[in-house]
């Protein structure tokens, strides 16, 4: 095992502790739990382009390819034993069935040789058609529970659904990025999909989820993650 490579793989990630469990917020927007070699990605929204196209809005048909490419990179870098796709893996229930063959093969190659869990999301409430992997509504692991939509309470919950983003203003400039939002008790994942926007973590959709004084937004930079204290964040 090459220790240097192992170090380099995590160099720019930010460490978080959720309910006592250690995890790394990766700049790609994926969460990695080193103890279990578990990779978590949320809100891939695969086939979003074709979902819109059905209604006559022709978004570029490259979103699935781009998302898979980024997923490929992070999997190649971190070599997880298991992957959790935390819901809204496809933009709609028919997404998996529409998946063009090339993309399907790419996805299968990524899944090959590791455990893969599809968590149910609101966009994809049923198992993806014709794809392997375990279909679960939620998943518990140690102190942690993985589900798509955050629930009240939720100690040790890793969730997605809300597409958190954060904004800071420094020197009169506003910077807005997708982020992991975590208060030590729970964590909400950024959306991993390439055609997904984000919602400010101070929006009322997040109200009641975090202990405000402990909230940190782990904003996604180009090559690193920037932990920003809740007090520095600005509303949308």
């Amino acid at each position, binding site marked *: 095992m090459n220790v240097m490579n192992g170090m380099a793989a995590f160099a720019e990630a930010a460490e978080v502790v959720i309910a006592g469990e250690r995890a790394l917020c990766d700049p790609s927007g994926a969460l990695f739990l080193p103890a279990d070699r578990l990779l978590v990605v949320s809100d891939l929204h695969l086939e979003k382009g074709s979902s819109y196209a059905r209604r006559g809005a*022709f978004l570029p048909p490259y979103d699935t390819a*781009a998302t898979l490419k980024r997923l490929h990179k992070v999997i190649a870098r971190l070599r997880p034993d298991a992957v959790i796709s935390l819901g809204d893996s496809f933009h709609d229930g028919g997404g998996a069935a529409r998946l063009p063959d090339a993309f399907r093969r790419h996805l299968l190659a990524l899944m090959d040789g590791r455990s893969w869990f599809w968590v149910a999301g609101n966009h994809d409430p049923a198992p993806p058609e014709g794809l392997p992997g375990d279909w679960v509504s939620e998943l518990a692991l140690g102190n942690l529970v993985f589900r798509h939509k955050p629930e009240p309470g939720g100690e040790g919950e890793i969730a997605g659904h809300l597409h958190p983003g954060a904004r800071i203003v420094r020197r009169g*400039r506003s*910077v807005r990025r997708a982020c992991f939002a975590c208060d030590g008790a729970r964590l909400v994942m950024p959306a991993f999909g*390439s055609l997904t926007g984000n919602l400010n973590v101070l929006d009322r959709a997040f109200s009641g989820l975090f202990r405000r004084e402990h909230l*940190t937004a782990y904003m996604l930079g180009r090559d690193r993650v920037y932990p920003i*204290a809740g007090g520095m964040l600005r509303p949308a």
Partner: protein
Amino acid sequence: MTGDRAALLPAAFQEWFAARGWSPRPHQLELLRRTSEGRSVLLIAPTGAGKTLAGFLPSLTNLAARPKHVLGQASRGIHTLYISPLKALAVDIERNLSKPVEEIGLDIRIETRTGDTPAHKRQRQRLVPPDILLTTPEQLALLIAAPGAERFFADLKYVVLDELHSLVTSKRGHLLSLGLARLRRLSGNPVSIGLSATVADPDGLRRWLVDQNPPGAMADIVTVSGGAKPEITILETEEHVPWAGHSALYAMPAIYEAIKKHKTTLLFVNTRSQAEMLFRALWHINDDNLPIALHHGSLNVAQRRKVEKAMETNSLRAIVATSTLDLGIDWGDVDLVIHVGAPKGASRLAQRIGRSNHRMDEPSRAILVPANRFEVMECRAALEANYLGAQDTPPLGNGTLDVLAQHVLGRACAGPFDEDEFFNEVRSASPYAWLDRATFSRVVEFVATGGYALRTYERYARIRRMKDGRWRISHPSVAQQYRLNVGTIVEEPLLNVRLIRHRGPNGMARGGMVLGQVEEYFLETLTPGDTFFFSGRTLRFEGIRENEAYVTSAAGEDAMVPAYAGGKFPLSTYLAGEVRSMLADRSRWSALPEQVSDWLRIQEERSLLPRRDDLLVETFPHGSRFYMVAYPFEGRLAHQTLGMLLTRRLERAGARPLGFVATDYSLAVWSLGDMGGMIRADALSLDRLFDEDMLGDDLESWLADSWMLKRTFRNCAIISGLVERRHPGREKTGRQVTVSADLIYDVLREHEPDHILLQATWQDAAVGLLDIARLGEMLSRIRGRIVHKDLERVSPLAVPVMLEIGREPVAGSAHEALLGEAADALIEEALART
């Protein structure tokens, strides 16, 4: 001759003129004669020349001679279509036209159709068309896309295009030119009558009016030469003319005195924020309680209408306005125009002055009020140009592809079309005479399935080829979608500003009145508790809920002023050049007020004044940043492009630029790194920084990340119909549109850089946003002629641009640097706790 011409005028009309002691003007008769021969005509005339009546005389006389419509017969299609850029103008014309029609005793139905027209009235208009329909370019697009357009327009004889000079330079003009081409096919080649103010390139407008088959065909032209010379003065004042800023507060007492001395004064400003500020400042000293009103585009409609009504009845003494009143609306007896701030173009100034005293034979009176010292020079140059009759209206420009895409879908909504036939029709519109067949096909493909190389959307196509090869829409819902997205005006995302009484215990109280709309990006820079001027009041920002900004009254407090993007006009090349030569030529300073020439002298002492062909670059620290200010005097567009390219280069040089701001005269870049120090240490070369190779092959790739290109892309995406303006029943908020358009842009750049919409964006940006040609000329002019001044503090000449510093973001490492800083602050905070 005159007798022959007058013979064209039916007796009833001659009597009407005579009864008023008038006689028809020669140009009115000339227009009548030429149109009676079936010729299309461009009428160029200053305001007050009776342009409107001239434009309608051919139609009115033709209608007067028309056999009476017999009850029970199928209703006739419309006879005359009048198109104006402003809704208010259409309404205004209806009133002005109804009067002579009634007085002459003509049986003519005149109706307006605008976005405000209720649905039942539109429905009725489609079934029983009026004789004369007064409408806007957007409504025309909807009318020609509707089934039944052929019958509706079958009897069309005249198309009157008002304020043509202002329409043709925009995308609205491109859409309108395509609509006009369609009208020529729908009805047997109607006569086009263009009404225009004086322009730099009348032949461009003449081509615009007629079928470009044969290529280069032109409408006739009738020119009315200029009326009485206007009396223009530059405000003379004992007060201190500010070095910077746009408020012109120093001039308020003098402006107020001028208002008192005149019946009705129109005060023009360039931006809405200036309008807000001027209005407030005037009321502050309005001891006589003169009725002074405010009118600008982001006020709510009811408020605007109230002001317009008051204007009509001459019950106002002064009105502060932006470009919403720029055009030929004729309200009340305006006897003085005051232009606050520099006019930005000689032709624009002439048109605005034309607002006063709508009688051609009396001179208009106007006072120019420069808001700062650069503007003094610009006003001086504009004034001289006005007396010389110099024209600097912008060029017409090529039709854009996003507008074409919208038109193609509209064409399909009206019924099946043959691609070849339609291509010829499109090319008959002069803005699209440049179009080649291959590009046209790509646009059609784009409309059908998005035009992607990866053809995965065939099954979702919006338009499809039928067996006979013609294209048609694939489903009626496509037409519905089209109707909701028609038009080329893409506003900055706007939020309603709602005045609430106070902050409730649980967040914000609901209800309260909507004061108007403000650009979202401005509100984004506010923190709850910040104050700003809007709608003539000082307001406190409380927060944003959905698409509304909640504010409370903050009367009597100091306020931040909204910095609107809208309403900023770029300085014309002509005036920019004049200002440059004035600056370089000491002998011309005598025409300037003493305080301005003093300012230039102080600049000479503290730094230096560039010679006509030199480029002065100053560097200095200020606050926590380092600044570089350059003075190319080439206008804001070219400076913006330069700023974007310079920040890229400075980033690569390690200066960590944070942003730049461009004015018409200069450009400031600020950074975390000490640029002056870098130049001293030879770590940065100005010659290399300003080298022409910045416009080389890598320009496009440099531009790729820029927010300006993204904003342009967003507009193209909306206009072309890739991104929906709104969904039935649910208006997308601006933010949602922005986010998704930016994401689409990034995906397209990466995966299909040759996509037709990126091509359209580039075409759009190169002209409208970047002014690359002008920048290129400047870079070659200053080669080897850069003069650097390394200063310890801001120079007199730099003050104006320093105060302009806005919030235009720079993408790249500076953003990362800010994030890093914020993260460091977190660490500091964490360490302090232990």
